[in-house]
């Protein structure tokens, strides 16, 4: 079965600094895959390389076709990227943020919005509120909600747990898992909290200094003591 | 570091030599032209400290030149307490008066960022010419004031134009050295830090307000000196001597020459001279270009040409001539780093 997303020796640099030195990975349809590793390993850059937010060389294949290297084109292709820092439009209302999420879709927003409110009722309560005044957890929910408004085939998530209380994080991950199943979308998540990520992901890749060093199913990785200690920090 | 310093000192020596020796090879009128270019150079030097270093854009520096010019004119013609001042002595006074005006503008300027400041200073440039017309008994109104023609002092055996040349470039050299010392030292580094990141500069203890205001005052001082020299050279002043467009030319010259580049400043100064003082020759020259039907006598054609050239130059060289040179010659040329 051809994978939904395939990276083949992708390199990326920020000016003179090479962040990715040939990363290859794949995500199957409806699969939950994690990208793990220490700070600076290149996890965020990997997501950016997919969405085209950073200059990359090497191909990214999505749904069998080469992805263009521009973020607006990848969004239109069916990929939703929730970046580091959530990318919320803080000056706009919650509702406007959601409207923007559905930018690439035509037709009425009502149904799509209903879906989002089903997962995150708190967003409906705060529909008219300015997004910047939401709490951290609510902003994360908004970011996720915005992502699925477009009914993407693949969601790229960058550090969803960052800055959030553990209880909230668990809740968000559970909603995420539910969304994945019900929407039939694949998730590629970057996480520092390896334990949490592996609890939900089917497979994972571990990056170090811009390269994939270990990969396998979650069970394999969790069972492997040395991997856990060297790369996952626990 | 040492090598750089050595190169710069050598550069200064060479420049001093050139200044001293060049008049031997050029005729009298060319000496006059060089002098005028020198005056614009001084003004641009000051402006580059303000814009290139502390990152504040001023579209109103023509007004500071005018302040310097009027100071010189008033002191020379009306004098102080009935005592007419020799033109030479008015130069530093003109600089100081303009400098104080610059400080006064610099204080409220602290509260304005980037383009707000550009607009306000543009407003100053537009408003200033109204003042002489309004307070005409003091400023001489539209007729202005007439000074004595420039004369070499103490009976020095040289032509007035040559004297003007030496006077201007001597002052320019001194001011250049001062600027160099200023920028190498703590103030210069502070300004650079401010330009690159105000937040970082402030948090490392740099007193933003002092340095930014100081930059304004210094740049105005330079402009005032330039304006004073200019009035001395022309021996008269009226509101048309420092028109609104001059402020625009100053910034355009800075942009085309490239911020923070010595060669760029010279190029820019020459550019202003051509535009402001030799416009007719330019239109004549353009007449000789048969290919495009650029008859500069048709109304509006000079503006079209100049505007188009400005756009093309800035699009082709966003960092100006200085930036181009820096790209070609790498870090050898200028120790003045610009991230712009």
């Amino acid at each position: 079965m051809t994978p939904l997303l395939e990276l083949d020796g992708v390199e990326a640099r920020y000016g003179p600094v090479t962040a990715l030195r040939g990363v290859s990975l794949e995500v199957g349809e409806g699969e939950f895959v994690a990208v793990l590793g220490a700070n600076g390993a290149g996890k965020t850059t990997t997501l950016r390389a997919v969405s085209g937010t950073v200059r990359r060389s090497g191909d990214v294949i999505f749904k069998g076709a080469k992805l263009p290297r521009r973020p607006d084109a990848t969004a239109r292709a069916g990929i939703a990227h929730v970046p580091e820092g959530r990318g919320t439009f803080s000056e706009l209302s919650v509702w406007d943020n959601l409207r923007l999420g559905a930018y690439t879709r035509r037709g009425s927003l009502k149904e799509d919005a209903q879906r989002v409110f089903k997962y995150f009722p708190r967003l409906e309560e705060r529909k008219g509120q300015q997004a910047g005044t939401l709490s951290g957890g609510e902003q994360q929910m908004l970011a996720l909600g915005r992502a699925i408004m477009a009914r993407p085939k693949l969601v790229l998530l960058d550090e969803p747990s960052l800055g959030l209380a553990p209880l909230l994080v668990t809740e968000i991950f559970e909603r995420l898992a539910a969304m994945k199943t019900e929407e039939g979308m694949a998730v590629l998540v970057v996480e520092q909290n390896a334990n949490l990520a592996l609890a939900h992901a089917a497979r994972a890749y571990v990056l170090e200094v811009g390269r994939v060093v270990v990969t396998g199913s979650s069970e394999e990785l969790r069972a492997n003591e040395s991997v856990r200690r060297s790369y996952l920090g626990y | 570091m040492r090598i750089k310093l050595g190169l710069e000192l050598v550069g200064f020596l060479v420049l001093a030599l050139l200044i001293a020796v060049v008049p031997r090879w050029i005729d009298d009128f060319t000496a006059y032209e060089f002098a005028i270019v020198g005056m614009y150079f001084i003004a641009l030097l000051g402006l580059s400290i303000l814009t290139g270093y502390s990152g504040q854009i001023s579209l109103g520096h023509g007004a500071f030149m005018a302040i310097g010019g009027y100071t010189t004119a008033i002191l020379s013609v009306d004098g102080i307490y009935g005592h007419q001042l020799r033109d030479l002595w008015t130069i530093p006074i003109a600089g100081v008066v303009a400098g104080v005006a610059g400080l006064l503008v610099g204080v409220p300027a602290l509260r304005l960022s980037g383009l707000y400041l550009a607009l306000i200073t543009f407003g100053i440039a537009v408003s200033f010419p109204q003042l002489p017309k309004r307070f005409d008994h003091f400023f001489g109104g539209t007729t202005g004031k007439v000074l004595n023609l420039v004369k070499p002092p103490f009976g020095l055996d040289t032509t007035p134009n040559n004297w003007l040349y030496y006077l201007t470039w001597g002052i320019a050299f001194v001011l250049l050295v001062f600027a160099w010392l200023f920028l190498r030292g703590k103030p210069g580094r502070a300004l650079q830090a401010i330009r690159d990141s105000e937040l970082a500069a402030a948090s490392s203890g740099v007193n933003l307000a002092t340095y930014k205001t100081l930059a304004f005052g210094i740049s105005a001082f330079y402009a005032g000196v330039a304006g004073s020299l200019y009035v001395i050279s022309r021996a008269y002043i009226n509101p048309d001597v420092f028109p609104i467009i001059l402020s625009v030319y100053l910034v355009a010259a800075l942009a085309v020459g490239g911020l923070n580049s010595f060669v760029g400043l010279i190029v820019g100064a020459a550019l202003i001279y051509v535009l402001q003082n030799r416009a007719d020759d330019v239109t004549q020259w353009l007449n000789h270009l048969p290919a495009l039907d650029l008859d500069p006598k048709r109304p509006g054609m000079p503006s079209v040409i100049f505007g188009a050239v400005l756009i093309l130059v800035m699009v082709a060289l966003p960092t100006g001539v200085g930036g181009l040179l820096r790209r070609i010659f790498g870090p050898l040329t200028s120790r003045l780093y610009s991230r712009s």
Partner: protein
Amino acid sequence: MLVAAFTWTEFAQQIAAGIREGAIYAGLALAIVIIYRSTRVINFAQGEMATFTTFVAWSLMNHGLSFWTAFPIVLALAFTGGFAIERIVIRPVEDAPVVTIVIVTLGLALLLNGLTSLIWGGGNRQFRGPFSTRTIDVAGVPISVQDIGIVAVSVALVALLGLFFRFTKLGLALRASALNPDSSRLVGVRVGWMLAFGWGLAAMLGAVAGMMVAPVVFLDPNMMQTILLYAFAAAVLGGLDSPIGAVVGGLLLGVTITLLGRYVGFVGQTLKLPVALLLILLLLIVRPGGLFGSVTVRRA
């Protein structure tokens, strides 16, 4: 300092004239703000763009079209022009130092001013506006129909724009592109086109301002220069990134300087602009972002 004679009737007339002036400043100021918000550029050529399109309107009317027939044509042309200018002239320098971009728009202003002179020649022209110049009686005060018309058109335009920005998808995308271009791209917005669209809208606003003011002053290539300065002042007063600020600032400025010019002898007609700027400068000391603007911390 104050002028002796004062009648309430004249005062009301002055206020009306001030509102009319202010409406024009507001339109142009709004154009400036739209461009500033989306591209962080001050379009020094805004006035000349407006003048140029007004001349086009004049030519169209000379060829027999009525004002209201020419109106939408001119708006469409203005939009296309603004759009094209952003893509062709501004895009190449959008990452250049601020000084460079300033010079580019100044160069553009020069170019357009020259082009206008070139194509239509200097000298004044009569521009037959759509409103009659007779006065009607409003609560005992004679007010010109033209003034009312100008204000009405400006208000309608601003209202339409407001609705457009709030309720349409395109308007939302435009707002988003100005606020957060990176996030906008991630949801699929073609930010580049949005910026050009913003310029097109601004050009349209300028065209309307030009066509409204031309019947009042005479149509000549330098028509909009002073008005542009007042529009800058209004935009700064209201806050460069606030559309509401532009409108309020414009009206406030219009009324204030009309009254100042008429009733404060010291100001007269020559010192109107300098005094206006001084007042705004004083305001900016207290509120650096203008009345409605926000002050952003400059980051490295």
